[in-house]
């Protein structure tokens, strides 16, 4: 980026950073894949798995090393949160919460890296565009929240039986003892159930996406200021980048935690008996 007259080039810089690596190229939105999102999320998920698996396999009951102590600390923190929300077996929910939390945390952490670092490296090896933050892609967050929805339905049905689950959907939240009133209230109950099942994944996905996308965009804007090399904007850009990094770190942690917490709450809620 050379020193230029701002305006047009600044917008081009932002738009360049907002474009995904689409494959196959020029395909319609429904027929193409965001390769950058797929690569980054798979790599970060594998890093989490290998990191935690490494320490889990060589865990000792003696004096733990620093790495093992950190993994144990993280595990106990997540387990405590799940214990608060759900009093039954944590055989599945605990590992699920741990995976969700650390996967989202790792993906969000790509936000704090300099905006041009990974894209420049990827573009040097031939990619046209590269967006390194998978959670700033609405496809990624919706994929995760829809997976949570499927798990919610599955665990609800497993806990109450398919018939019991449908009965719960038809007869709650408006309850009546009279058989006539039951039939009358059934459509409203089904409507409420549908609304709940739609708003849960949508709010879960859009909350994460909105936060990380806004943070990412602000980083891009600040980095855009720094493209005016010999001007007053350059030091302001550096200060702004550092300051916003601190705010963003807090947001990243809170959003990863909220996604994990709400996913556990939804799955726990579906299993509770009325």
């Amino acid at each position, binding site marked *: 980026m050379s020193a230029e007259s701002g305006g047009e080039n600044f917008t081009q810089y932002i738009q360049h950073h907002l474009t995904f690596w689409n494959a196959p190229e020029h395909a319609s939105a429904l027929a193409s894949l965001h390769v950058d999102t797929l690569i980054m999320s798979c790599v970060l998920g594998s890093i989490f798995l290998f990191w935690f698996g490494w320490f889990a396999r060589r865990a000792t009951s003696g004096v733990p090393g620093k790495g093992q102590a950190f993994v144990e600390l993280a595990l106990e923190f997540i387990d405590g949160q799940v214990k608060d929300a759900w009093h039954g077996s944590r055989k599945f929910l605990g590992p699920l919460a741990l995976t969700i939390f650390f996967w989202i945390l790792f993906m969000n952490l790509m936000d704090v890296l300099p905006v041009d670092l990974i894209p420049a490296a990827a573009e040097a090896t031939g990619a046209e565009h590269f967006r390194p933050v998978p959670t700033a892609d609405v496809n990624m967050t919706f994929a995760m929240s829809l997976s949570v929805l499927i798990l919610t339905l599955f665990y609800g049905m497993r806990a109450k039986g398919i018939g019991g689950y449908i009965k719960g959907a038809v007869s709650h939240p408006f309850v009546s003892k009279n058989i006539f009133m039951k039939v009358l209230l059934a459509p409203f109950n089904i409507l409420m159930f549908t609304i709940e099942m739609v708003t849960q994944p949508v709010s879960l996905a859009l909350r994460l*996406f*909105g*936060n990380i996308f*806004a943070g990412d965009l*602000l980083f891009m804007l600040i980095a855009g200021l720094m493209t005016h090399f010999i001007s007053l904007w350059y030091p302001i850009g550096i200060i702004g980048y550092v300051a916003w990094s601190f705010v963003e770190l807090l*947001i990243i942690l809170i959003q990863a935690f909220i996604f994990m*917490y709400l996913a556990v709450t939804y799955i726990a809620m579906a299993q509770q008996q009325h």
Partner: protein
Amino acid sequence: MEQLIALIQANTAIAAGLMIGLGALGACIGMGVMGSKYLESMARQPELSPMLTGRMFLLVGLIDADFFISLAIAMFFAFANPLLTSALTHAAALPH
């Protein structure tokens, strides 16, 4: 055509200002109400404060989220306006 582009720019600026301003207003009111209640309840029962602090940060994230969504959309429209881009491509295609 210049008039149309100026119209899009002016309306986008107003919309972005409203989105950020109203979003910040709502988030600030919500945060203030929650913060005051948090301090009140912590003063009443100090032994609950670790649990309350966790819950407070959860709510901070929930309250912040809506503001950040509107901020993101406003920033997107301010700096990479798709409406303006389509108008500009139409203008470039017009014979002069």
